């Protein structure tokens, strides 16, 4: 066997001393050359000359394939060049060991060409997953779109309006969902669990469990007559428990697929729905089914879920009924929500004064060390919705001590409708203070009406992901915060994790793709009234305390 020659790339990113590495390898008897960074014109020219002048096998110690973009393979037949990812090694010893090992292993044979399955699996049917499915399906790929919920749509389906255009969320999402369901290249699998993923890029085998809905999808027409007769009333989980629902129900009015399902946990087997269904679609004895898919690539679009603020007990979420999360607030103001769009407290009283508390969970070392990037703009939007519902109401936005919203004396024009301005109560009012405590004493405030305080709660990675990340064959790196992370090279492949063949969409990789792209929105307002340091007392424009969060007497 001819001696393997080693070329070391003098990458500026190298954590170790390249010169020392070369001398170490030379002492071991290898033929080593240190070249300037191989991706620069100088390095590339020298590499080309070396490869052209000397035959034999080459080992290039440079960066991993996601970074060098197939550069070296373009220069020469793949068989004679092997690349070792030097950036993966922090110390000299392990780098030398890796290179020595690569030297002594026989050269790879010509890569075998394996067939690639053209099908794609998309995990998660939120707006990111749906858009990916549609784009691929339009390009002629067969797509399996799986979602663990009864309907696709994800969090976006639960929103009332989206910023910055105040488009009705379900109106712009709904048609996409319908198109996904009716596209001949997309097979939609809802209420599905993923058990196992095996294989590699080009050929993954995926085991699914189709959870029983107890309703035959092919027979059900979504007429809702079963729901009418069902005697069991349960909270609607889709409406975040703000609204009653039946034990057999359609997930929500615009659900796709528009089919009923039974929540077996509460079902009493009364058989009333079985009798009521004209289509004999109900089968109370349905069993889970398994299914196996073979796909060439997988897109993870499992999204995010809001942070649960009940852990921050000082805000009283779960204890004080008028403290709600911003997602709950979206349901309350939504026309198809529990109050049919009426801005009322969960107890049914109209809301005159409303406060938003920002950064709940976010930028907090105890909970989420990152900024969620969407809450500020979402809260401004929600404040605007409140003013649309209650033009003479008062809305306060309480922002953290270095948070995004305030300061800008004007906001993009489209948020401020003229007539509302004419009525004197045009804008939400901003106050900079850390909300330290929220007491139920909101009721004892000088104002007559009750307040609802939605908390801009933040996104944290979806539960499901922890499990999925540990599947065999995946090399997903999970940083401390448990969002999926791109492989090395945050920039080179933000959509490409280590496993190969995976792409990220939506929240699971980043916050900003499609669904929740934070808009370049800058709102600034000179502070109304005093803002006292330390977040002790915050006052609104009229000089009246608008939130009792910090006053000892109220606690």
């Amino acid at each position, binding site marked *: 066997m001819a001696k393997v020659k080693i070329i070391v790339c003098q990458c500026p990113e190298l954590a170790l001393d390249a010169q020392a590495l070369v001398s170490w390898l030379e002492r071991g008897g290898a033929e080593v050359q240190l070249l300037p960074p191989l991706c620069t014109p100088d390095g*590339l020219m020298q590499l080309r000359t070396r490869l052209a002048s000397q035959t034999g096998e080459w080992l290039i110690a440079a960066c991993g394939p996601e970074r060098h973009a197939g550069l070296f393979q373009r220069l020469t037949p793949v068989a004679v060049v092997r690349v070792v990812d030097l950036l993966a090694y922090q110390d000299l010893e392990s780098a030398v060991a890796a290179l020595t090992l690569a030297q002594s292993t026989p050269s790879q044979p010509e890569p075998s060409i394996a067939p690639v399955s053209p099908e794609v699996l998309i995990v998660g049917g939120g707006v990111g997953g749906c858009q990916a499915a549609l784009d691929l399906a339009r390009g002629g790929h067969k797509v399996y779109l799986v979602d663990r919920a009864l309907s696709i749509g994800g969090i976006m389906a639960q929103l009332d309006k989206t910023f910055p255009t105040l488009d009705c969320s379900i109106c712009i999402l709904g048609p996409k969902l319908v198109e996904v369901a009716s596209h001949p290249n997309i097979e939609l699998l809802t209420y599905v669990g993923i058990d196992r993923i095996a294989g590699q890029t080009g050929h993954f085998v995926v085991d699914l469990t189709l959870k029983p809905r107890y309703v035959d999808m092919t027979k059900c027409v979504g007429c809702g007559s079963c729901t009418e007769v069902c005697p069991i009333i349960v909270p609607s989980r889709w409406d975040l428990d703000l609204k009653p629902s039946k034990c057999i129900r359609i997930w929500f009015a615009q659900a796709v697929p*528009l089919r009923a399902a039974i929540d077996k946990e509460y079902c009493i087997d009364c058989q009333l729905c079985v009798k009521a269904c004209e289509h004999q679609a109900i089968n109370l004895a349905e069993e889970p089914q398994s299914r196996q898919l073979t796909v060439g690539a997988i897109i993870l679009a499992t999204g995010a879920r809001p942070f649960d603020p009940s852990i921050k007990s000082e805000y009283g979420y779960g204890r004080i009924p008028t403290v709600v999360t911003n997602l709950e607030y979206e349901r309350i103001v939504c*026309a198809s929500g529990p109050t049919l769009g009426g801005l009322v407290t969960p107890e049914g009283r109209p809301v005159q004064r409303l406060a938003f508390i920002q950064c709940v969970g976010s930028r907090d070392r105890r909970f989420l060390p990152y900024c969620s990037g969407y809450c500020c703009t979402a809260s401004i939007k929600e404040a605007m919705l409140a003013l649309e519902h209650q033009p003479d109401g008062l809305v306060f936005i309480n922002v953290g001590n270095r*948070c995004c919203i305030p300061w800008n004396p004007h906001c993009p024009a489209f948020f401020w409708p003229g007539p509302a301005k004419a009525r004197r109560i045009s804008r939400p009012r901003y106050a900079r203070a850390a909300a330290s405590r929220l007491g139920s004493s909101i009721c004892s405030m000088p104002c007559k009406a009750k307040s609802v305080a939605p908390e801009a709660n933040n996104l944290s990675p979806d539960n499901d992901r922890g499990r999925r990340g540990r599947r065999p064959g995946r090399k997903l790196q999970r940083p401390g915060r448990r969002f999926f992370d791109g492989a090395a090279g945050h920039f080179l*492949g933000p959509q490409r994790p280590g496993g190969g063949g995976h792409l990220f969409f939506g929240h699971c990789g980043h916050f900003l793709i*499609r669904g929740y792209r934070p808009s370049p929105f800058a709102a600034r307002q000179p502070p109304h009234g005093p803002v006292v340091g330390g977040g002790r007392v915050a006052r609104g424009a009229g000089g009246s305390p608008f939130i009792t969060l910090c006053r000892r007497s109220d606690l």
Partner: protein
Amino acid sequence: MDEEVRIGLYICHCGLNIAGVISPEKLVAQTQDLPQVVICRHHLYTCSEAGQREILEDIEQHGLNRLVIAACSPKLHEPTFRRLLIEAGVNPYLLEMVNIREHCSWVHMQEPEAAQHKALELIKMGLARVRLARPLTERVVPLYRQALVIGGGPAGLRAALDIANAGFPVTLVECQPVLGGMANALHRTFPRGQTALSLINPMMAAVSLHPGIKVLTNSEVKEVSGHVGDFQVTVRQSLPMINEDCDRCGQCLEVCPIEVPDERQQGLSPRKAIYLPAPHAFPASYVIDQEHCNRCGLCVPACPRQAIDLAAQEVEHHLRFGSMVLATGFLPFDPQGSRYESWVAFPKVITTVALERLLAPDGPTAGQVQAPGESTPPREIAFILCVGSREEEGHRYCSRVCCPTALRQALELKSRLPQAHVRIYYRDMRTTKKDWEALYTQAREAGVLFIRGQVHEVRADQDGRVIIRADNELFQTVSADKVDLAVLAVGMVPGRGAALREVLKVPISDDGFFLEAHPKLRPLETVLDGIYLAGACQGPKDLSESITSASGAAAKILSLFAYETITLDGIVCEIDPEKCIGCETCFKECPFQAIKMVGAGKKQKAQVIEAACKGCGVCAGACPAGAVIARGFTDEMIMAQIDAALADHPEDKILAFCCNWCSYAGADFAGVSRLQYSPAVRIIRYMCAGRVHQKFILRALAQGAGRVLISGCHPPGDCHYVSGNLRALARIEKLKKKLVKKGIDPQRLRLAWVSATEGRNFQQVINELAAELKHPTEDQPQASDG
């Protein structure tokens, strides 16, 4: 068409978006007995699966052959319901979207009664139009599966690689002599501090080696015509004066007598007129700065390889592409010429981009951090954030990258100069992405001082240091600190690509960046099919977002290129040979040379070349004989809409003709922005202002319309059909003179240009016209925007 017309009318609540102002139930009661309306229903969300299924069932049960959906803008859901009709086996062009949301409920929120009445009339107009609708067939044309990428920065490189790796040829056009864009000026990137070189250079090298990618540097796109699937593009390239024999020996440098500031080093060091634009960038050869070169010719004999030829040459490439990606990037905000000009007058006040060069080993100081003109490292360093971002006037947006850039640079300075004090003056610390917040935490731990407050003044001290006066918001005091180096964290402003607007007809937003088709749902697409956006030309983006959007745009193109043909819509023109008098008016007016004259002498007739026709209807607007049938927007349909709109109290109405691309979209934008205006307006949509025939205006005036508004894209360049707006302008001018002769007040006719982002302008025009109607006796000033 002999078939009986059977219309299904569906009125959408759109949650409370429509139903909050207008009562759909009442509309149903008012419209269900109108002629030919077979079925009339209302639905909470017509576009939902349940709503669509109801329509499908009705079509089957009641044999509907026309559909009217009174809901949102056709720009949003016309495709949705067209698909539905195809599914039901009905021709998709037998559909009319009545826009009672953007054009009614959202803009007349305070006048529900007037809105209700307007919605009814809009529906009647829609019914009048749909009764005359004819089935149209779509055209299938071949697709040139080659892509053009404009811009060779990180986004352009990524998009080109993704498309070329899938096997489709790509041409990459870059206006600079080298690839790499702004990334060439960067030293390290946030949040992980990797060198820009190690991230961008491999892509640059791969692009220049890729057999499927043709790179044209020093080139600009001069002309674009055609449509998705077949764009004809003219690229002008100035050929380099140094050919590829150059081996970068540098001997020419020594003889060149001209010295100018080096833009790559932010002017911190000089360069010659013959120079290496970026040592590690591709293509790797010396270039001559044509602007500064005095043609002394000293370098020509100095070159040992005879690679230099001082004759400047330009070539034009005529190319054809199926699709294109705009990746023209951004420029850093330049404090010169802004209100910060006096700040940067001191050499010790630099921008973050210049600091990036000072930190770089190949920078002007070879990596030594020193304020310009100093030989010792600075002891006191201050960063000032939000320079050129979030301004009250000017750049109102947040550039988003300045906070993490300043944090990363502050951290690097702290580690390289541990004795230095670093302070950051900020307004809000917007570390809005996953890893960015950690930078802030690290910076605090490293001892960087954060001061929240507005900086009022930056001036020089007597001893040459810089004094920064700022509010300290926390302590409610005003501070004045002396520093050795002040760094302005400058924002991002649109790059040179904005000039392409005229060439491509892609709209740009108020802030100068290219406008995406929808900020949420179509962030990578422009309103023009087949033209996609990547990177910071669409708005401030960091590297990872730029790369993400580039891959996304490439994926969009790849799904387009999966087929060999593309289907274009059926809206084209046709000429009735019976009526044609062979006058050649349409032949002369057509902006696309899509009309040919056949026959000779008296038998000469015009004929439309369908593949070239874009359906603008400029010919139909000009034809004196009414021989042109503008499919989808025929004379009869528009006349019927005029009659329906003016059936009741015409004198109180404003009849607005709005072109599909700009004015109608502008009215939609007014709706989205909830800009309230007078409910007197009734909008008729057509493809181009050039479609308006004077007989439409005369008919409307004869019916007694209070005001008639013709609206289109801003002249000269905005028109999506080259010159339709100019044709309209000429016709209106002519008609106004005619009106005077006929004794009709020409003030009743107005021409206004409204672009897709000018909702406010639309509101203003309508309110002005409404005011004129209310006070007709007052002498209104003549409209000046015609």
